[in-house]
């Protein structure tokens, strides 16, 4: 990894990113389902808990974050599975460029099609759930920085379980507990900015999490892929 991003590594990164985006575009359902899942789960909470705007407003940030977490988990399953089944993953592992960047490209493509739409629609759901207006910016920005972390963490779990024929709920058991710090940071940021705490402090914490995940998680995913394909 010494000669980071030489022209060819960048080329392979872009080609992989583009390939995954094209695949996602051609399988629109795979792209749409997590998004619809997010919308439906988030709207189930008022039905299940209360229509009272006051109480909804209190829980809305948590509802949005948990829905985003579950939607990200649901979308994760596609990340490496088809590549594993059709043998593309072996090509990826035998590429002369650092696997780190290729895994990063796949994670980025995955987030762009499954994480970003959720972030973009979150203000609308926040409005429906009566989130206080002062918190919109915080919620949006923390989701924007936090959902990539969820994708990066989930990628490790998917890479570890990609060889399993029927993986059932094991992916959830492995990855959900790992997402707890992100969930805490995201929901606390919303609540604390409502109490008048400075937004920047929470963005800094979120940013630190994102940077840590960006540097370490693809390395773990890459190692996990090598183990699974072995």
């Amino acid at each position, binding site marked *: 990894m010494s000669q980071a991003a030489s022209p060819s590594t960048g080329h392979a990164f872009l080609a992989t990113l583009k390939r995954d985006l094209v695949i996602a575009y051609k399988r629109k359902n795979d792209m749409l389902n997590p998004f619809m899942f997010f919308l439906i789960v988030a709207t189930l909470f008022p039905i299940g808990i209360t229509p009272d705007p006051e109480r909804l407003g209190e829980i809305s940030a948590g509802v949005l974050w948990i829905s985003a977490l579950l939607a990200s988990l649901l979308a994760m399953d596609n990340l490496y599975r088809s590549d594993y089944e059709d043998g593309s993953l072996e090509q990826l592992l035998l590429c002369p460029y650092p696997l780190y960047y290729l895994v990063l490209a796949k994670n980025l493509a995955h987030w762009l099609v499954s994480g970003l739409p959720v972030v973009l629609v979150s203000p609308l759901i926040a409005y429906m759930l009566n989130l206080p207006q002062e918190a919109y910016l915080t919620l949006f920005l923390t989701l924007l920085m936090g959902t990539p972390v969820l994708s990066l963490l989930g990628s*490790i779990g998917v890479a*570890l379980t990609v060889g399993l024929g029927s*993986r059932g709920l094991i992916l959830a058991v492995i990855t959900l507990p790992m997402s707890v710090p992100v969930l805490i940071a995201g929901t606390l940021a919303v609540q604390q900015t409502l109490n008048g705490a400075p937004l920047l402090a929470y963005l800094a914490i979120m940013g630190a999490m994102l940077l840590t995940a960006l540097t370490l998680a693809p390395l*773990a995913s890459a190692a996990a892929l090598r183990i699974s394909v072995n």
Partner: protein
Amino acid sequence: MNWTWFHKLGSPKWFYELTSKWLPWLIGAMVIFLAVGVVWALLYIPPDYQQSYTTRILVIHVAVAGTSLAFFPLMAVAGTITLVWRMKLADMVAKNAAPLGAWFSFITLATGSLWGSVMWGTWWEWSDARLVSMLFQFFLLVGVVALRSALEDNDTAARACALLSIVGCINVVIIKYSVEWWNVLHQPSSPLSMSGESANGPEFWVPTVVMIVAVYLFFAVSLILATRNEILQRERKAAWVQELVSKA
């Protein structure tokens, strides 16, 4: 530096023979410490002026909780050895440490909520950060056990679990701090604490130390016994195991 001891350590046979010599001593010490600790803790600790007799549960709780924190670091070290040096023994230890760690975490949670049911009047209290992060450690350990049982190939399972243990170990630390932070900012309605500031006299901490030693010995003995079973099973085709079995 001489590394022969390290390679020797990797030999299951060497481990089996060494632990055969150690086990009687370890088990003896464990029985003594456990007997003294349990009897002292449960029957002889004087009632605390604030917590009354509940400190007796706390002694066991503290000892088990302290030990259960050792599992992830242990598994992460074993996992690193598995991934870097391919030492089979490290994986045999890690494989048995995961379910044992899950049990220790579970007992910590159970004794904690038992204590809480008396002191706090509730079996579960979200405002105790330690209980909450212990719960997530429990979940993560269950995840490692689940991954191990899902993967059929021994070698793949060993390395996948090794990686997950390392990731989990880092994660447990982050979870611990974020839960504490979450806890502080949610300002618990009443200042509940399990440290029991009132209960820190020698009549409390001496049996606690005895109990901690006892539980660590119990942990070591359980892990060694389980690892020895694993060795016999995996090396069943080796000459020395067959000889051992035919003698018995």
